[in-house]
C-alpha cells in the first residue's frame, strides 16, 4: 500500500527579551543555578505577574513577518499541572485566544519545488525551569533560571508530507525569527526547538491517522531523523495488523529511536482558565503599524532583491539570504568591492563559507571582515592580483597578516602587466621547449596549457593570465 505522511510542527522560539515575560529577572543563558530567579519566578506566595511589553512586540513582529492575523484582544490562561520545575503549579500560556492567528508560509525544497504551509497560531507563554537529575545523591535538583523565559509557540497546520518538508518549514521559521531579531535561534541552548505531530494514512484517504507527538527536537537533523523513524514505526505497526496509539514519544538521538513517554490516557487535564492576574492583552493598529515600520527586509524579499539587483542565480540568492548575518556580510562585501556582485557572491559562498565551515565559525566571527574581503575583490577586479593569487591573499588575511593591500605589498604578489617583462619570460619558455613547440604547431593544441603553466610558474603566478594567453597564442603561431 502507498502511505501518505501527515506532519504538523509546534515550534518553541525563545524570545530574545532582556528580562522574563512576567518578571524583571534577566534571561541571560548559562548563569549559576537559581541566580536569575526572583520572587515572581519562584512563585512565592503573594507575587503577581506583569507582562513584558517587549515580548508582545516580538510576537507582533512575528505575526507581521508571516502575514498572520494579529489579535486585537488575546487572553493569558493558566495551564495547571504539578511538576517540581514549575513553581506556581501552573504555566501562564495562551489557550483560546492567542496573540497571533492564522497565517501562511512559503517553503522551498532542495529540488526547487515550492509549497505553502499554514500557520495555525502563535501564542506567548512562559518556560518552566529545569530538573537536574545527576549529582544530588538520588535527589533531583531544580534550576529556575529558565522559569519565566518568554516563548513564542508557533503551531503549524498538518500540511507537511515528509520529513524534508518539515525541516524546510522549520528552517524557514528559524530564518524569519532570527531575521526579525526576536530569537537568537541557538538550538544547542534550546532557544529554538520543536515538537512534531506525525501520522500516516493510506494515500487518498481523507481522514487523518492516529498521531504521535515527538517531543523536544532541538536540531534540524534530529527532526528529519526522528520523523522518518516514526513514520517507519507507524507503517510497520499498521502493516503488521496493529493500531497506532495516540501518545507522546521521545526521540533518543544516541539510539536513533523513539520511545513512548506517556499515552493519551495518562495525559494531564490541564484545567485551562483565563489567568485572573492578567488583563486581556489589547493591541491597537497604531502599535501594529509601528512594529511594521521597525521590521527589517525579510528573507523572501531580500532574495528577490538579490536576484534583480545583483543579478545572482536563485541558488546563490538563496544561500546568501539564508541568514541575516550572511546577507548583511555579502552586501558589505559588494559595497567594499566597488559593486563586484558576482565575484563577491562566489567568494562568500565559496572560499569564505568553506573556511568558516572547516573551522566551525559563524560568519559574524570571521577573522576576515566584509570590508577586507571586498577590498581584496576590488584588487582582483582591477587586475592587481589574479583570482589564484587572491586565494593566497585570503589565506594570509585569515591568519591575521593584515588587509589585502598590505599582504599584496609585503608578499610581492602584485600582478605583472608589463608586457615587456611578460614577453621576456614567454620568449625564454618557447626557446627552452622546442619539442613542445613542435607538437603545438603540428596541431596538438592541448600543449598550450603546458606553456601557460610554465610562464605562470616562472612569474611566480604574478603574470596577468589574460596577457600571457594572448602573447603565447601570437608567438606560438610562428
Amino acid at each position, binding site marked *: 500500500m502507498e502511505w501518505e505522511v501527515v506532519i504538523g510542527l509546534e515550534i518553541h522560539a525563545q524570545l530574545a527579551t532582556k528580562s522574563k515575560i512576567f518578571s524583571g529577572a534577566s534571561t541571560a543563558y548559562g548563569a549559576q543555578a537559581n541566580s536569575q530567579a526572583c*520572587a515572581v519566578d*519562584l*512563585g*512565592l*506566595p*503573594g*507575587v*503577581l*505577574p*506583569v*507582562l513584558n511589553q517587549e515580548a508582545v512586540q516580538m510576537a507582533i513582529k512575528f505575526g507581521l513577518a508571516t502575514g498572520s492575523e494579529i489579535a486585537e484582544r488575546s487572553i493569558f490562561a*493558566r495551564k*495547571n499541572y*504539578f511538576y*517540581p520545575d514549575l*513553581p*506556581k*503549579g*501552573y504555566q501562564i500560556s495562551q489557550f483560546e485566544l492567542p496573540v497571533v492567528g492564522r497565517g501562511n508560509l512559503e517553503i522551498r525544497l532542495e529540488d526547487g519545488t515550492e509549497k505553502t504551509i499554514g500557520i495555525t497560531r502563535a501564542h506567548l507563554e512562559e518556560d518552566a525551569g529545569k530538573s537536574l537529575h545527576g549529582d544530588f545523591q538520588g535527589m*533531583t535538583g*531544580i534550576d529556575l533560571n529558565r522559569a519565566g523565559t518568554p516563548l513564542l509557540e508557533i503551531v503549524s497546520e498538518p500540511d507537511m508530507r515528509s520529513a524534508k518538508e518539515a525541516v524546510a518549514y522549520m528552517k524557514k521559521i528559524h530564518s524569519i525569527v532570527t531575521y526579525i531579531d526576536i530569537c537568537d535561534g541557538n538550538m544547542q541552548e534550546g532557544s529554538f526547538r520543536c515538537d512534531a505531530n506525525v501520522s500516516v494514512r493510506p494515500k487518498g484517504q481523507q481522514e487523518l491517522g492516529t498521531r504521535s507527538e515527538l517531543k523536544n527536537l532541538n536540531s534540524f537533523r534530529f527532526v528529519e531523523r526522528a520523523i522518518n523513524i516514526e513514520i517507519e514505526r507507524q507503517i510497520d505497526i499498521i502493516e503488521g495488523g496493529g493500531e497506532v496509539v495516540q501518545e507522546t514519544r521521545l526521540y533518543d538521538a544516541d539510539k536513533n529511536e523513539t520511545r513512548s513517554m506517556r499515552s493519551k490516557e495518562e495525559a494531564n*487535564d490541564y*484545567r*485551562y*482558565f483565563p489567568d*485572573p*492576574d*492578567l*488583563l486581556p492583552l489589547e493591541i491597537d493598529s497604531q502599535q501594529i503599524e509601528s512594529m511594521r515600520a521597525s521590521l527589517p527586509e525579510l528573507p523572501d524579499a531580500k532574495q528577490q532583491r538579490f536576484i534583480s539587483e545583483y543579478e545572482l542565480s536563485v541558488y546563490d540568492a538563496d544561500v546568501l539570504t539564508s541568514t541575516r548575518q550572511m546577507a548583511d556580510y555579502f552586501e558589505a562585501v559588494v559595497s567594499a568591492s566597488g559593486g563586484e556582485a558576482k565575484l563577491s557572491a562566489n567568494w562568500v559562498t565559496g572560499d569564505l563559507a568553506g573556511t568558516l565551515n572547516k573551522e566551525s565559525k559563524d560568519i559574524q566571527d570571521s577573522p576576515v571582515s566584509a570590508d577586507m574581503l571586498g577590498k581584496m575583490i576590488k584588487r582582483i577586479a582591477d587586475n592587481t592580483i589574479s583570482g589564484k593569487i587572491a586565494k593566497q591573499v585570503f589565506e594570509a588575511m585569515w591568519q591575521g597578516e593584515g588587509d589585502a593591500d598590505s599582504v599584496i605589498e609585503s608578499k610581492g604578489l602584485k600582478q605583472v602587466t608589463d608586457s615587456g617583462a611578460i614577453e621576456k619570460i614567454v620568449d625564454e619558455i618557447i626557446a627552452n621547449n622546442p619539442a613542445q613547440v613542435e607538437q603545438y604547431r603540428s596541431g596538438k593544441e592541448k600543449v598550450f596549457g603546458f606553456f601557460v603553466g610554465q610562464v605562470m610558474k616562472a612569474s611566480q603566478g604574478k603574470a596577468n593570465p589574460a596577457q600571457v594567453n594572448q602573447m603565447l597564442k601570437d608567438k606560438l603561431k610562428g
Partner: protein
Amino acid sequence: MHNKTLSELSDALKAGEFSSSELTRSYLDRIASLDPQVNAYISVAEQSAMAAAKAADKLIAAGKASPLTGIPLAQKDIFCTEGVKTSCGSKMLDNFISPYNATVIENFNAAGAVMLGKTNMDEFAMGSSNETSFYGAVKNPWDINKVPGGSSGGSAAVVAAQLAPAATGTDTGGSIRQPASLCGITGLKPTYGRVSRYGMIAFASSLDQAGPMTRTAEDAAMMLNCMAGFDERDSTSVQRDVPDYTATLSDSLEGLKIGLPKEYFDEGLDAQVGQAVEAAIREYENLGAIVKEISLPNTHLAVPTYYVVAPAECSSNLSRFDGVRFGYRCEDPVDLEDLYKRSRGEGFGAEVKRRIMIGAYALSAGYYDAYYLKAQQLRRLISDDFSRAFEEVDVIMGPTAPGPAFGIGEKSDDPITMYLSDIYTIAANLAGLPGMSVPAGFVNDMPVGLQIIGNYFDESRLLNIAHRYQQVTDWHMRVPDQFK
C-alpha cells in the same frame, strides 16, 4: 490611650501628649494581657514594633510626620511581611517568613506606621467564622463563645477589643464586612483594583481586595489614603488618582438617593437585624436622604456563582504550596507523588481541601462549560443588576450579614449554612464594587452592621455617608466591658 480613634491618636502624637514608643508599648502590654481571651493575633512583632516606634518618634520630633506616623496597626496575616512570619492561618505556611513586603505593608512602612503584629484569620481566607485557622478560632470580644466572623476575624476582634487602633483586612466574599458587622466595627472593601494585591496571598484573584478595618469611618479614610493607589507590580490595580478620602467626610447627604434591594430583606434575614437596618435608614432620611426600593433580581445567584468562581481560582492559586520550595513538607517522602500528596494533605485544613476539590472539578475537561463558564456568565448578570440600580440611586443599603454572630462550632459542620453568612456581601465582590459595613445597633447584645454598596471608585462617597451617620449615632464607639 487605647480609647482614642486613629485621628485622635495622630493629633496626640503630633501634640506630644505621648510618644509612639509609649503608645506602642501600651498596645503591646494590652495584647499580652488580653489577647489570650480572643486569640486574635498569630504573631506579635514586639521588637520590630518598638524599633519602628522609635524611628517614628524621630520623624515626629523632626516635624516630618504624616498622619499615620507612629500609629500602631495590626496587619492581617495574609500580607507578606519581611522578617515576620506570614502564615495565612495555615499549617502550610507555619514556617514561612517572606523575603519581601507586600505593597500595602510597604505603603504603611513608608508612612511611618508601626506594625504590632499579624492577625488571625480563616485558613487562606476561606471561611466566615475564623474557625478554619490552624491557630485556633478567634473569639468575638462581645461574647467569647461566639465567632467574630471571617475571614478577617482576627482584625475585627483586635479593633473591637482595642488591641490595635486599626487593622487591615481582605475581602473576597465579605471577609472584611461580615466580621466588621459581627464585631461592631467599621470595615471597607474598596473597588477591585483600588488597592494593590501584590504580596497579599491570593485566595481568589479576581475577587480579593484589601481594605481598612477601623473604629470610625474617618479612621478608615485615613487608612485608605495610605493603602490605595496604582501599583505597577499588580496588573489588575487601576491607574487612577487617589483622592484625599478625609476631605469629603462631612459633605451633606441632602438629596442622596438610597436604594434598598427588596431581595436583601427576604425571609433569610433575622427580623431584628432587619429592624436595626431600618432604623439606620430612618437616620439617613433625617439627614436628608431619599429612600427607594430597588431590585437586584439575580441576588439569589450570587452564592452559587461565587462558590464556583472562588474555588476554581483558589484551586490554581494554591498549587504553589507543594512542599518543594517553601512551606510545609511532609516527613520522609518516598517519591515525588508522595511528597505532593502528603505535603498538601497534611499541610492544608479541611475547608481549604474542600474548596480546592470543588474548584478543580469545576475547571476539569467536560465540566468547564457547565460550571466555570456558566458562573462567568452569571457574574455578568449580577454586575448588570448593579449597573441598572446605579442609574436610579447613588448607593445601595441593606444588612451586612443575615444575623448577628453565631456560636463557635454552631455551623462548622454545615458548609452550606456557613456559606450563606455571606449572602449579602458576595455580590459586591463578583461585581468588583466597593462596600462598607457600619455598626448599626445590637441584637441580643451582639453588634450588627449596615452595609453600604457604592458605584465603582465611590469610596469617598461611602466614607462620607458612613461618617455622617457616625456623627449622629454612637454604635461604633461601644466597647465590650472587659476590653474597655
